[in-house]
């Protein structure tokens, strides 16, 4: 029975009597657009964070005493190098610097320019970086959020840091990090590691933390055990833990949104049920005509369900397209702030354009299916109308 005549008739009815469905269609588009936007933003941020985490070290060691994170002794580096299976151990220096004029914090990250990998990475971030020129004096590379604040306070070429030893350290601005990395780098300042040590006041013989690379993931549990027993005033952060933490965080945030969405959806479904339970004269006449010319109850039920499915599915498509435009072209104003939290600096972030088919499937399951469930009983009520009363 699902032939072209049937489909023609279905669309004919829909288009002719579109006024019946228009209000539901509009509300549906808004709901779908909202939930899809949330999923798109969440997936985009997750993907960006996962990509960033790829380059995260397998283990990060911090000195942890009395519930506080302290600077880590550099001597631990040689100890860890003795453990089999570890390919690289490196000390890092980084920390927060308080920028008085705007009362905000910047993240200072020290880079060891003797490390080829680091230099290579920096070269991919900043085109044509001349390392020798960079190291010839105290230079720094700043994130776009930092640049914005410094410009506001007329620090165009340099900035005077005030390290804890009460000296003044003038550091020149060499360049700005690309906008695409804003999600992590907006409030970041990159400088030579020794300069960072001076500015952050990290004593000689200490580093902020130590990173460890373990090429073979199967050896990770054994190495973790060995690390744990090496010092008791130590905290180990494994990359897998961070990944799982973020996934759970997103699930939690997403879960909150889902609960809110469920409340909205259930309300909408109740409205839908009520709306379609109202049998208008047009409906009665329509059913009476179809029954009198020999349409089976089954055929009428499926006609009505198909009608509603098309309304729901079109709303789904339009909603998804709207969400795409809102998130990836307009950059999700308002919703972005809710997701990323209003941090110290404006998050001038562009969401990387990509559509996850899972997200589309989730929206379909969360909207189209409940929509049809809500209308099945009203549709049945209409389809079994006795044509006799109407035929008089």
């Amino acid at each position, binding site marked *: 029975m699902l032939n072209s005549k049937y489909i023609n008739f279905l669309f004919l009815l829909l288009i002719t009597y579109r006024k019946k469905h228009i209000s539901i269609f509009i509300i549906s588009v808004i709901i779908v657009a909202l939930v899809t936007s949330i999923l798109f933003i969440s997936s985009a941020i997750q993907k960006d964070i996962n990509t960033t985490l790829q380059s995260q070290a397998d283990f990060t060691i911090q000195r942890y005493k009395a519930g506080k994170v302290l600077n880590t002794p550099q001597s631990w580096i040689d100890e860890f190098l003795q453990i089999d299976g570890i390919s690289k151990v490196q000390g890092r220096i980084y920390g927060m610097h308080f920028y008085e004029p705007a009362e905000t914090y910047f993240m200072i990250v020290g880079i060891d320019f003797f490390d080829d990998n680091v230099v290579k990475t920096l070269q991919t971030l900043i085109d044509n970086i001349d390392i020798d020129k960079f190291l010839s004096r105290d230079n720094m590379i700043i994130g776009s959020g930092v640049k914005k604040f410094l410009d506001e306070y007329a620090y165009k070429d340099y900035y005077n840091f005030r390290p804890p030893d009460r000296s003044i350290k003038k550091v020149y601005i060499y360049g700005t990090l690309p906008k695409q990395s804003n999600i992590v780098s907006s409030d970041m300042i990159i400088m030579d590691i020794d300069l960072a040590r001076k500015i952050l006041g990290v004593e000689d013989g200490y580093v902020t933390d130590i990173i460890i690379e373990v090429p073979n993931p199967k050896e990770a549990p054994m190495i973790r055990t060995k690390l744990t027993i090496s010092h008791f005033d130590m905290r180990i952060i494994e990359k897998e833990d961070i990944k*799982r933490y973020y*996934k*759970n965080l997103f*699930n*939690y945030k*997403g*879960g909150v949104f*889902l609960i809110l969405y*469920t409340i909205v959806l259930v309300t909408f479904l109740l409205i839908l049920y009520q709306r379609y339970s109202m049998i208008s004269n047009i409906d009665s006449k329509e059913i009476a005509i179809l029954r009198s010319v020999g349409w089976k*109850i*089954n055929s009428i*039920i499926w006609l009505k*369900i198909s009608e509603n499915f098309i309304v729901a599915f079109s709303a789904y498509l339009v909603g998804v397209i709207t969400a795409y435009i809102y998130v990836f072209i307009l950059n999700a104003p308002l919703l972005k702030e809710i997701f990323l939290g209003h941090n110290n600096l404006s998050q001038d972030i562009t969401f990387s354009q990509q559509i996850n088919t*899972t997200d589309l*499937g*989730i929206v379909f*399951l*969360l909207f189209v*299916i*409940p929509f*049809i*469930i809500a209308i*099945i*009983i009203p*549709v*049945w009520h209409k*389809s*079994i109308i006795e044509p006799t009363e109407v035929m008089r």
Partner: protein
Amino acid sequence: MSDILLSHEVSINLFVESLVFLLLVVALFHTIIILKNYQKNSTTEYQYKLEKRSYLVVTIISFALIVKIILLVFFTYTLNELSNIIPGAMCAAGVIKANTYGEKVLILKIIIIMLTLLWITLNQQDQISKNYPFFKQKMYFFVAIFILITVELSLEILFLTNISTQTPVLCCSTIYKAVDDTRALPFNLSILQLITLFYLLYLLLIIFAYLKKRVMLFTFCLFYIYITYYAVVYFFSTYVYELPTHKCPFCILQSDYYYIGYFIFTSLFIATFYALSATIYKFANKNFNKAIIWYTLFVIICSFPFIFYILKNGVVL
């Protein structure tokens, strides 16, 4: 536990399952009214109203079937996603074995879809026959399916709420024993014996279907499911993975292997459906031939990676 429940996929799964369940409760309510009051040859207004009630039951069950099939696919996807947050799990196999409920849920889901398809076949015949010959039988049949669906939902909730994100689970290489352990196969068969049995049974099924031997086809059809499970996991899947130690029924569902698992399991499912419906329902004689076609298709899809591998490499794994 809450980590699992908060995972989008799981909460959505449970949400949609619950909605469908609610709808089926409505169908059950109407079914009970019909069963209590329906009188076959009566022509009163009330009997006619009961007939109209049955249309709601039919519509709900048909719709529930479509959604359950979608949800089954989504469930396997969810299991794969959960393997990212459960320590030790590399694919759905590990997740399923996280507790004792996992396998039961999956098997029950498949059985329910099969039974619902059989119900719809019965219903279609009932509606096109004169005087609704199977009216009451199909209502009782639905009640039985509903009980199974209740069990399925309960098991699913128990399964999902008892997966620990702290305790590591086994991965498929341990579950399905990467080491060639013949104790894993039924009746202590060797792989060669198992595969011979697989093809022999296929031929027997074709013969029984051709000769329309109902009882034999029914028995062997069910036995065949048991044998094909082991044949697919311990032999055919290794040729999909091109790795003799990778034996897993779930990894073949992934995109890396062109979702061939879906083709394998779907063709087997459809073949089984046609075989069962042909043997159970006297009016479904046409399904014998359809069973033959689908069993043949299933065997071809299973054999294809194996034959392709031999042709490409000239050796067996």
